[in-house]
């Protein structure tokens, strides 16, 4: 009963600290190679295989609270927010 | 209301209570202790806040906090304690929360002693904290004035969102005189719109003294200076005594002003044409009135219980129009009328116009 997830990163407010990339268990967050207006390379979800589980671990560590997490659970009533 | 025989310190405390002070924060120090002690009894009795702070530094920052909510708050201390409050005062001035501070001055520098003094003039009037601000300084000379000026301090503090201080020497704090207390005021129910109180149904409020960009801080300072100008224009207070026809002007505040008053009376009895101007507001200073008097006067005598501090402001007002002499006692010694009288007589002699000297000699 695998959960499928997805995150949105507010790239203009991301500071490119890379913390999310180090904690994602699915290893689906990568740093972009472009700079945002503040001069940082923002993180981005790179998840072609749909491996993100929506576990929200990335959001838990993001110091700038720029990650929004969604999850689709097949098979049962969605759980309450986890954080 | 009838008069009661009241001690200055207690009178101020009770006047603050009647004025609706909702929180008092202080730390014991002689010669203001009766004020704190009175508060320790009265405030809890009335369900209001009293905290004996761990220090004057903490006390002034408690004042800062409570005042940020728009409540009426005060603290009191004496000279060394007031020195410790300077950083806090600067923050309060920088964030424009109304606060009332009472300073019952004692002898310095350092630990000095606990005898009456007026040597906090500079630190209270010129503003001792960093940054460009001024605080209203009210200097009572009688117990009744101590009461009235305490009330006024709360009103001015709120009217202008400023620090208002009551500055007295230990003598006025310890003096008992008949005086009348005001009736108990209703407490204000709704906080002013700038106050912090929880952002319920409105944008959040912030109380802060930071303006990181110099230009922003300068804009704030312009606003602050404009307010100070307004206060200077509206709130000058002083009392004159035998000023009619006076050719010599004595200037003194608080106890020194009272002593000078007796000396002026004695001098007039000896035919010396002298009068007294007793500043009640030390800031704003009655500069304009003194400058007027200087147009006509032969000389000024400044009497202070310090080594000469208010004399700077008198000199600025007199602007070289006539001599400004000084008589001061320091270290807690209170000048007595005969000393001041002798100084007046000397000034009289020294400034007699040539024709009168001739007349006297002739």
């Amino acid at each position, binding site marked *: 009963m695998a959960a499928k997830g997805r995150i949105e990163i507010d790239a203009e407010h991301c500071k490119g600290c890379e913390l999310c990339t180090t904690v994602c268990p699915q290893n689906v967050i990568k740093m972009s190679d472009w700079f945002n207006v503040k001069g940082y390379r923002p993180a981005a979800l790179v998840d072609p295989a749909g491996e993100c589980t929506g576990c929200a671990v990335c959001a838990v560590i993001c110091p700038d609270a720029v990650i929004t997490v969604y999850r689709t659970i097949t098979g049962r009533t969605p759980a309450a927010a986890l954080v | 209301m009838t*008069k009661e*025989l009241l001690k200055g310190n207690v009178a101020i405390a009770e006047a603050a209570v009647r004025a609706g002070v909702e929180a008092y924060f202080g730390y014991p120090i*002689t*010669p203001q202790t009766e004020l704190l002690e009175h508060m320790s009894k009265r405030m809890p009795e009335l369900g209001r806040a009293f905290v004996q702070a761990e220090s004057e530094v903490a006390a002034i920052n408690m004042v800062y906090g409570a005042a940020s909510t728009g409540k009426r708050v005060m603290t009191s201390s004496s000279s060394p304690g007031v020195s410790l409050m300077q950083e806090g005062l600067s923050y309060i001035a920088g964030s424009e929360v109304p606060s009332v501070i009472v300073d019952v001055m004692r002898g310095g520098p350092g630990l000095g*002693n*606990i*005898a009456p003094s007026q040597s906090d003039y500079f630190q209270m009037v010129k503003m001792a904290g960093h940054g460009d601000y001024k605080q209203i300084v009210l200097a009572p000379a009688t117990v009744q004035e101590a009461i009235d000026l305490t009330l006024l301090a709360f009103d001015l503090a709120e009217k202008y969102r400023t620090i208002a201080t009551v500055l007295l020497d*230990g*003598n006025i704090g*310890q*003096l*008992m*005189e*008949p005086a009348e207390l005001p009736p108990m005021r209703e407490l204000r129910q709704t906080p002013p719109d700038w106050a912090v109180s929880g952002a319920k149904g409105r944008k959040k409020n912030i109380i802060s003294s930071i303006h990181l960009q110099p230009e922003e801080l300068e804009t704030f300072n312009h606003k602050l200076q404009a307010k100070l100008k307004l206060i200077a224009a509206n709130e000058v207070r002083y009392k004159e005594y035998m000023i009619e026809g006076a050719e010599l002007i004595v200037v003194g505040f608080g*106890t020194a002003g*009272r*002593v*000078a*008053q*007796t*000396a002026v*009376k004695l001098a007039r009895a000896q035919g010396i044409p002298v009068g007294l101007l007793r500043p009640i507001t030390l800031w704003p200073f009655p500069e304009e009135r003194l400058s007027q008097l200087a147009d006509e006067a032969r000389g000024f005598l400044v009497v202070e219980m310090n080594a000469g501090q208010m004399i700077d402001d008198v000199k600025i007002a007199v602007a070289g129009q006539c001599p400004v002499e000084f008589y001061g006692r320091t270290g807690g010694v*209170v000048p*007595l*009328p*005969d000393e001041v009288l002798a100084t007046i007589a000397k000034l009289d002699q020294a400034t007699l116009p040539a024709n009168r000297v001739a007349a006297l000699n002739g």
Partner: protein
Amino acid sequence: MTYDIIFSGFGGQGALFAGQLLAYAAMDAGRFVTWIPSYGPEMRGGTAHCTVIISEEEIGSPLVRNPSTVIALNNPSAEKYEPLLATNGYLFYNSSLVSHPFTRRNIHALAIPGSTAAAELGHAKLLNMVLLGAMLAYVPVLPLEAVEQALDNHIPARRRELLEANKLALRKGIELAQRAVQIPA
């Protein structure tokens, strides 16, 4: 007329209270009055004194160099104030304790055996009232009744039981003053 009176004694002898009582009486009589204590280091164990000024006019300086009247409850006070007393001033001293030899000829120094009288009245604390009474006999600042009234009106609750005794002491003081030896006379 302006009266400037200094009450002086050891801490605990009641100099400050006697002065306050007189101040209350003056206030009740509609006079201008100031009461100012010595405060500070000398208080602990040492000497306490206060200055009371009573006048028909607004009072300037609450302190005087040369008081017109002094009440000296102990020897140091007598020593200190003899030279300061105004010419023709009155000095009432507690002759039970004071051994100071007065030398000025231009003052009235009255020996009042206050401690002894207080002891006889049953309480050492009455000393101050005895001397205050003595003063009232010579210095027409206020009538005895005004002071007695002030006792009724302003005596603190914890001293209430001594109310009558205080009044007796005042009268005793007057009596002693009337037969007191005056130096120089």
